[in-house]
């Protein structure tokens, strides 16, 4: 069987869970029906409230894991909980969405049970009768087809957006929901979490912007940021940035696009001097039209771009401003 580990917070399902189910359904096709059925487990207090959403998928069943010690997420408690579910269900594959939470505990879980974990998977294929997993390497410059080594279960995380939640097959009727038998040794939980918070109220909600000009490492220095500002103004766009720009303090953190920042889907996204590391792509690849301007023709950003200009951003940005101001 294939076990999918869904994620929820306070009874609210993380949408990436549905993408993970869609990916698991594709894995079932690649690995053969004998690898099925799919069981979904969701842990933490509030799990039972999202069980209905998960049971709508074409899966064999849904397990909820609620127990003392699972009220707030900690890696120690989640390793204990998911390990027990794995022991009880003996899956061939354990599938996770590649969220920050998964990244926090899935490697520890894999190490605890001494099994392979393949992360950030963007596709599933069949190679020599077995399932292989495609994942980006070297900052997205290359893709690798990877096979797990050792005994099952194999732990796999699917990158956010790699599979579409709306492509998830729904069942003819709701799958059965039952409670997993999980007990947590609270004394073994070493992390004491506090309530999540936001640093500052976000001044700009980039998710509502129709057009975005985003600037990356290619801008080179803080003194050059006005070049990007002028381009954004000429396009009637909001200015945004990739992570390194915000790390350097050249633009405020709330203008950051990517896995640690905002996720956007504007009509037009202009990537200025952004190479297109995967952490950035997950935040913007839903844009309708993507323009990439970069000096490096091999930059991964061109793989998602509708229009590309290979060249010097310090020549092209002013030329675009002049062109846009003509009419």
């Amino acid at each position, binding site marked *: 069987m294939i076990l999918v580990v869904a994620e929820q917070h306070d009874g609210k399902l993380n949408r990436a869970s549905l993408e993970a189910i869609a990916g698991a359904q594709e894995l079932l096709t690649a690995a053969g029906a004998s690898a099925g059925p799919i069981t979904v487990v969701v842990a933490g207090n509030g799990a039972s409230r999202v069980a209905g959403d998960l049971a709508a998928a074409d899966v064999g069943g849904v397990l909820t894991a609620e127990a003392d010690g699972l009220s707030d997420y900690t*890696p*120690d408690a989640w390793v204990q909980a998911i390990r027990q579910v794995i022991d009880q269900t003996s899956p061939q594959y354990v599938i996770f969405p590649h969220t*920050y939470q998964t990244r*926090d505990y899935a*490697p520890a879980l*894999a190490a605890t049970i001494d099994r*392979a*974990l393949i*992360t*950030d998977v963007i596709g599933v294929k069949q*190679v020599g009768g077995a399932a292989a997993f495609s*994942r*980006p*390497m*070297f*900052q*997205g410059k*290359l*893709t690798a087809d*990877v096979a797990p*080594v*050792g005994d099952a279960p194999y732990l796999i995380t699917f990158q956010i957006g790699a599979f579409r939640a709306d492509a998830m097959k729904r069942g003819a009727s709701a799958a059965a929901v039952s409670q997993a038998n999980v007990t947590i040794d609270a004394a073994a939980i*070493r*992390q*004491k*979490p*506090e309530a999540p918070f936001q*640093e500052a109220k976000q001044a700009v909600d980039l998710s509502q912007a129709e*057009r975005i000009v985003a600037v990356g490492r290619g801008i080179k220095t803080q003194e050059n940021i006005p070049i990007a500002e002028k381009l954004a103004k000429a396009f009637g766009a909001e200015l945004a940035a990739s*992570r390194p720009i*915000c*790390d350097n303090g050249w633009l405020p953190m*709330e203008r950051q696009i990517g*896995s*640690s920042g905002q*996720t956007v889907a504007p*009509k*037009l996204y202009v990537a200025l001097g952004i*190479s297109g590391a995967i952490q950035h792509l997950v935040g913007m*690849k839903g844009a*309708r*039209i993507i323009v990439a301007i970069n000096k490096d023709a091999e930059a*991964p950003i*061109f*793989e*998602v*771009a*509708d*229009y*590309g*200009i*290979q*060249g*010097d951003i310090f020549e*092209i940005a*002013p*030329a*675009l401003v*002049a*062109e846009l101001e003509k009419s």
Partner: protein
Amino acid sequence: MKIAVCIKQVPTREWQPRLNEDKTWVREQDVSYEMNEPDAYALEESLRLREKHGGEVVVCSAGPTRVQQVIREALARGADRAIHVEDAALGAADAYAAAAALAPAMAEEQFDLILTGLQSDDQGHAQFGPVLATRLNVPHSTIIMEVLVDGQSLRVKRELEGGWFQHIAMPLPALLTIQSGINQLRYATLKGIMAAKKKDIKKVATPGAVVSRQKVLALYAPTKSKQTTMIGGSPAEAAKELVKRLREEARVL
């Protein structure tokens, strides 16, 4: 406080990959290397903690002889000494193998705190930190943006998705994976570079055969998800053509 910082040597950002003959790895002879950027932030954080609390910073790295380049650089930036688990097979090893290689030598040292980057810029597994923590049986937390040490306890700010954060407390010893941008990096001074030449790098053999938990079957250029129209010509010509297409073809202006 005795702090370890685990550093990986990775290809430079400018490097253009070329594949080996059987297309399962890159041609290593073409690669130029640098310190993994998230690890550079972990190093900086460990130096700041030492400045505040005293103690020492020990660089720990697993890899072939070539990784001495980044070990020396870390020593030049201010780390006190280093442990290099050396094996040619570690060059292409995964996070599981790297953690297995480093764990015994690091366990012996009994570090109070272990820092490393949240992921590597080459293989990008984002697994090494939590796997090493499990092997050393110390608590961990990942994607950390602030580290506060108070006696034997630790309070950290962990980054969540979409601009959210969370404080987490845990006892020492512990392992943290550090997010890029937690601090401003310092660079090596000439004095630091000179001093690094005298610092100790302890070479250790791998505890056993290097075994990865995943095998690369094929390596290739990414498949394009979109048909990209590349626009050429002078900057002015390219700008004119792009604006025309955005207006008339894509209709987004």
